[in-house]
């Protein structure tokens, strides 16, 4: 059994799975339930000067019958008093001394930041997360993403926090910014101990075509809402990798964004996340999802003979580079396994209309195929014209059968050559420019 316990910038927890700051981490009651279910840490719902919420707060993107592929909200930070929140943090820490409780804070002035950081210490919190991310409600008051979007402002405020902080400080980054590493570097310069990302993305999920109002609707009106859930995972992975790869950042990362199961978590870890935080998946299915996250990650680490989360952390970071360093002489083509092909022809029509027109529908006799699964007499079967296949992957992505279409490397016999090398060779007349694609 691998060791799932972690020491994240000085914060210890029995496993790397934390409940992200949000509706599931609003109360002591929920924190108790989370820890009973197996979560390693809870990032408390952001504490600040109490706000007032609107009624109707969440909306979702459904695809087909799949609910909540994406999710958004216009709920603000905690609407409970700081007294109640800090008192409950203290209660929770008393009952769960070995679990991580992180106080998420959002304040309006240097004095208030100092006060809330001290109150976090006093409550026994293991760390502090600075919420510079909320894209709605708070930013209009000069907080949340209004801070996160301006690295210099974020740096100054983080500096205020570091003046008094005695426990690790995590800066939570907003994705609503052109270059995420600028914000991460600012956190580093200010002396923060770690970063967490991503917060939610500015979004509107839908328009009601009868009322022309969007959800969440408040008396016929809506607002720009923070987007999260499985649909944002690719955006979050991109930003986590960017920060992990930046030599000027080099600090512990807590990964957030659409994490729903152990695979998602492991992918964030491979891109350098030392802990991961989940929220939407809990809002969808409850705290119980952590059971399989723990079991699955354990089994995976064992299978890969990794002894701890640290062994996994960052393993994939170096395998992402800039486009101009990719090998232009690498070639792969699609192969269709006619023994498992069910004859839906989705690969054909995708390639035909959406890509490069290199799948033919051919009579089964011409391919020497007998009748079989997916085979109908005289009904044409798809076959890739490998000479024309550019290896784009589209057919293998639309294929509804696992492992039916595989992408196979075709040895080109040429040594690797990146775009940069190609440009250099053309400039030095070592080679002629490649002919354009017909």
């Amino acid at each position, binding site marked *: 059994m691998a060791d799932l316990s972690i020491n994240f910038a000085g914060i210890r927890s029995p496993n790397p799975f934390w409940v992200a700051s949000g509706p599931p981490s609003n109360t002591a009651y929920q924190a108790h339930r989370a820890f009973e279910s197996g979560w390693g840490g809870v990032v408390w719902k952001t504490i600040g000067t109490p706000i007032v919420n609107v009624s109707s707060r969440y909306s979702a993107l459904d695809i087909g019958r799949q609910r909540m592929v994406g999710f958004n909200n216009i709920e603000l930070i905690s609407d409970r008093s700081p007294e109640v929140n800090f008192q409950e943090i203290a209660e929770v820490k008393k009952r769960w001394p070995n679990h991580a409780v992180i106080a998420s804070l959002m304040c309006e002035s240097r004095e208030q930041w100092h006060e809330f950081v001290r109150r976090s210490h006093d409550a026994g919190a293991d760390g502090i997360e600075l919420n510079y991310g909320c894209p709605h409600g708070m930013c209009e008051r000069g907080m949340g993403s209004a801070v996160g979007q301006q690295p210099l402002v974020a740096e100054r405020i983080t500096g205020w926090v570091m003046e008094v902080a005695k426990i690790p400080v995590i800066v939570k980054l907003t994705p609503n910014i052109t270059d995420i590493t600028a914000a991460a570097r600012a956190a580093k310069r200010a002396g923060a101990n770690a970063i967490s990302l991503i917060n939610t993305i500015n979004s509107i999920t839908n328009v009601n075509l009868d009322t022309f109002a969007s959800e969440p609707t408040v008396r016929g009106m809506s607002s720009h809402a923070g987007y999260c859930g499985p649909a944002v995972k690719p955006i979050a992975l991109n930003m986590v990798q960017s920060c992990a790869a930046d030599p000027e950042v080099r600090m512990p990362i807590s990964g957030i964004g659409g994490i729903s199961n152990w695979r998602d978590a492991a992918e964030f870890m491979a891109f350098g996340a030392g802990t991961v935080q989940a929220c939407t998946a809990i809002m969808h299915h409850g705290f119980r999802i952590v059971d399989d996250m723990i079991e699955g990650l354990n089994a995976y680490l064992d299978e890969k003979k990794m002894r701890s989360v640290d062994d996994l952390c960052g393993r994939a970071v170096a395998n992402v580079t800039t486009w101009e360093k990719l090998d232009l002489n690498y070639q792969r083509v699609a192969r269709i396994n006619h023994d498992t092909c*069910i*004859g839906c022809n*989705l690969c054909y*029509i995708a390639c035909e209309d959406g890509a490069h027109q290199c799948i033919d*529908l051919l009579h089964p006799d011409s391919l020497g195929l007998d*009748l079989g699964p997916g085979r109908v007499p*005289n009904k044409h079967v798809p076959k890739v014209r490998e000479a024309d296949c550019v290896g784009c992957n589209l057919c293998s992505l639309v294929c509804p059968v696992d492992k039916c279409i595989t992408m196979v490397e075709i040895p080109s016999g040429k040594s690797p050559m990146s775009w940069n090398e190609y440009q250099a060779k053309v400039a030095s007349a070592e080679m002629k420019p490649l002919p354009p694609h017909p």
Partner: protein
Amino acid sequence: MADIQLPMRPMEAHVEANRCLYCFDAPCIHACPTGIDVPAFIRKIADGNEIGAAKKILEANILGASCARICPTKVLCEGACVLHDRDEKPIEIGRLQRHATDFVNERGIHVLKPPQKKNGKRVAVVGSGPAGLGCAAELAQLGYEVTIFEKSKLPGGLNTYGIAYYKLKPQLSLEEAELVQDLGVEIRCGVEVGRDISGADLQRDFNAVFLGLGLGNGNQLGIPGEKLPEILDALEFIEQIHTNPLHQIPIGNQVVVIGGGNTAIDAAMQSVRLGAKRVTIVYRRSEAEMSAYEFEFEKAKNDSVHFLFNAVPIAFVDVEGHVAGIRLGRTHTAKSGKLEMIAGSELTEECDMILKAVGQEKQADILRTIFPSLQIGADGVAVRDSLTGATNIAHVFVGGDCANGGREVVNAVGEGKNAAHGIHTFLTGERASLPTQPSRLGVASGASGCGLHHPIRAHELEEQWKRARAAEDGGVTRG
């Protein structure tokens, strides 16, 4: 009498429609004898566009609502669904089709509109059954003025008079005839061609004639006692159910149904539902040789219908002018393949009602009465070009049971539709556009067509597959 197949609840339909992979050049289209673009209509249901779905269905098959209920989908579209090969349940295409067509029926929404321009040509259609309606609807949409001649009081043919009541209510069939009328087709009921109006009259008054007469009366067994009052033809029995209040239909306590086809199953299950205490299907050959679909056979067994195989009727037992039983002889199949009666094997099955489901007469005589020079094959059906329905007489086309000898309702609709295209090409030299999916390189590479021309059937596929496997295994077929 409740429907045996229940309609889908809206969410059930949405869940099911979302399971569809939306195949390109889908096998279900190939398997549909009317060539319905199945993935397209299912996609519309998934998108919440039931009206568009119904339009897609009815454009291809005007009897889409009844076919949704009575098609043997397990051997047609659903039998060809690619999900079988992913070890999943096929899409419930029949029930989705019912969902879409019910949606517009229940709301009185007309999804098909008669064309704005008529081409001035007139076509006579003989018979308002599935073939006639299929032909008339297609012609009307192509701009023809169509008149249907129907000898019965009500239009619809088999769909109105001869489908098991627990599958299809006659009212729906009449509504489908109204759909055809809404396209501008005139239906003249109570007019028998060959008696009230001659074939020559039709040739004179119309640019073309389509014959969709169906089949005739039930076959006779020609054994003693056949005229007893409780001995009915199965189709006559089903017609009674369709035309009289259910509580007034006479039904025996012990019913014997003779025959091994789907009509025998229908008659047996109707008898159970009308209160018969014991229903027995008597078939002269073995279980394996029954022409009824396996799923129909299963349904009958679930209905507690008894089966007596390898038993051939010899005579009916007459007690004071009423049937009291049936004399049967046990049979076996000789090595020559001929069915033989086993000497001394006679037995009597007691019963007080007999339903005969031993096939229907071919229409050779009436076809000859209408068109004396029409070429009729040795099998008693009109000889025609299978793609266009063209006969040896120019201007005369044929389709449905009177040409194919008796197949499914959906085959009749498809043949009517093919004949409409044949007539259109014959009269105008133009090709009607067909509902095939477009492709880059036509036939050589791309969609290979739809079931309208060469419908595939799942059980035929299964047979071919087994044969191919048997050949691979050195000619030995595995159990």
